[in-house]
């Protein structure tokens, strides 16, 4: 399982890659591994407003549907339309080709509520105990 160092993480297993006032988000390698084969992803619409820790997408695997929460509040700038036809990209490449959306951040301070890679690693280890 990989946990890239340059990303921020949520307790709900989303990752966030900051770029100025924009953030690219997705679900972690741990999340995709736990879900198994992903069959469908319901993404937000560009232009939609999302709120930190609130619903922004849904991931379906064969017999489960899991909600994905936004790591930052803001406006959705674009979504990964590749995922519509190829949801398996999330299984294959959770941090790159499997990104979900780019959000224009409304409050950068919200990053204080997120974990860095070391904290997230410890958090996951805590879950398996």
């Amino acid at each position: 399982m990989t946990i890239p160092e340059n990303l921020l993480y949520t307790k709900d297993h989303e990752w966030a890659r900051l770029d100025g006032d924009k953030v690219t988000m997705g679900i972690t390698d741990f999340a995709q591994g736990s879900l198994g084969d992903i069959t469908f992803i319901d993404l937000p619409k560009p232009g939609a407003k999302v709120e930190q820790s609130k619903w922004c997408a849904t991931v379906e695997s064969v017999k489960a549907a899991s909600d994905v929460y936004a790591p930052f509040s803001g406006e959705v700038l674009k979504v990964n339309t590749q995922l519509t036809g190829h949801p398996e990209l999330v299984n294959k490449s959770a941090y790159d080709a499997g990104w979900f959306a780019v959000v224009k951040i409304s409050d950068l301070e919200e990053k204080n509520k997120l974990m860095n890679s070391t904290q997230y690693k410890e958090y996951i280890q805590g879950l398996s105990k």
Partner: protein
Amino acid sequence: MNYIAHTELEKKEMLKAIGAVSVDDLFRHIPDGLRPKSFSIPEGKSEFDVIEYLKLLSRKNATNLTDFVGGGFYDHYIPAAVDALAGRSEFYTAYTPYQPECSQGWLQAIYEYQTVICELTGLDVSNASLYDGGTALYEAAMMAMRLTGRKKIIVDSGVSLIYRTMLYAYTSNLSIEFVETPVVHGQSCREDIYKHLDDKTAAVIVQNPNFFGAVDDFSDIAQRVHKCGALAIASVYPVSLGMLKNPGEMGIDIATGEGQSLGIPLSFGGPYLGFIAVKKEHMRQLPGRIVGATVDKDNKRGFVLTLQAREQHIRRERATSNICSNEALCALRALIYASLLGKAGFQELARLNYQKAEFAKATLGNVSGVEVKRSAPTFNEFTVCLPKNADEVVYRMINKGFACGFPLGRFYKGLDNYLLVAVTEKRTKEEIMQFANSLEAALCS
């Protein structure tokens, strides 16, 4: 047979395990005002007494009338094979079975039913069925709101009042804006629909043929609705699809309807059959069960419940609907009915209905005082204007052996003299002519 599953001893054991002193104690959290004041139900009766009572009730039904009543439910012939096959014990259950994949035969039947509905409606995906035409229309409206994120629905008043009432009742606690548009000269008023159509509109709901029997082509409405980012919903009469342009050909997004005409007997309160079919792009918002075809590990064809992540047992409160089963037995009857007729038979059925209704229009048109409304084409049902109150005429015709139609004044203000007359393939030329004679007599007296 003991109808009460639990003995006093078992009840005591269960209460003890929960930690409640008595059954009343168990329900103490329910405020007094919300609890029934009493459970006064009569003493039990013997089987003989019950049968006699039911016979007494059934004698109140007028079963010997020649039926010209429609209004969404029609007196079609049901081939004996429908009862014989649907009554087989392997099939005789009302719902999708639990552990559905163990019941491959059932799943195949539902899959074939879905195929029939897709063929009839000209749309891509059907679910395993819903309760009736009204609940199907409600589910379609909810789907449209989820798909568009909008909360305004335009409803043509040619949609059955039964369906409209159900739609408003089911959604009475939700903040949805409903706008009803008028029927002018028997058909949907485009002008009014387009006046209300805006970027808040989730869907426009129409019906074909509409409640007055008028046939329409909604292609223009569908096109206009799509330009606005909204969806077009049509409630359709399945038998008419053997002849008329289908919802898919009109560009309709969601088609629903009442499946009673497909091999299900007319009965007060059902059970009936709701169907719903959608374009493929909308399938993830379909409610209820969907059966899919697949292959097993040996590459043999098999059937499974599919797209289950839409459903309640997985998605909980975010599910597309609280529907978690289907109207399996009625759907099976519809499938058997459609299979017995086949494509050519279905087309012939539609033609017979249309032609007999046209004959009835011509015949009734010759009755003095009766005006057959001809502003729009019709299928097997049409509106006539009588020189008297239609309710009264209906009553008189019952004494002459005819259920002569539905008095439109019951549903529409100012239409007290209008009668809706349905003519199915079961009506003979002689019956139609006797009907006209009796009507003439009823109007004279």
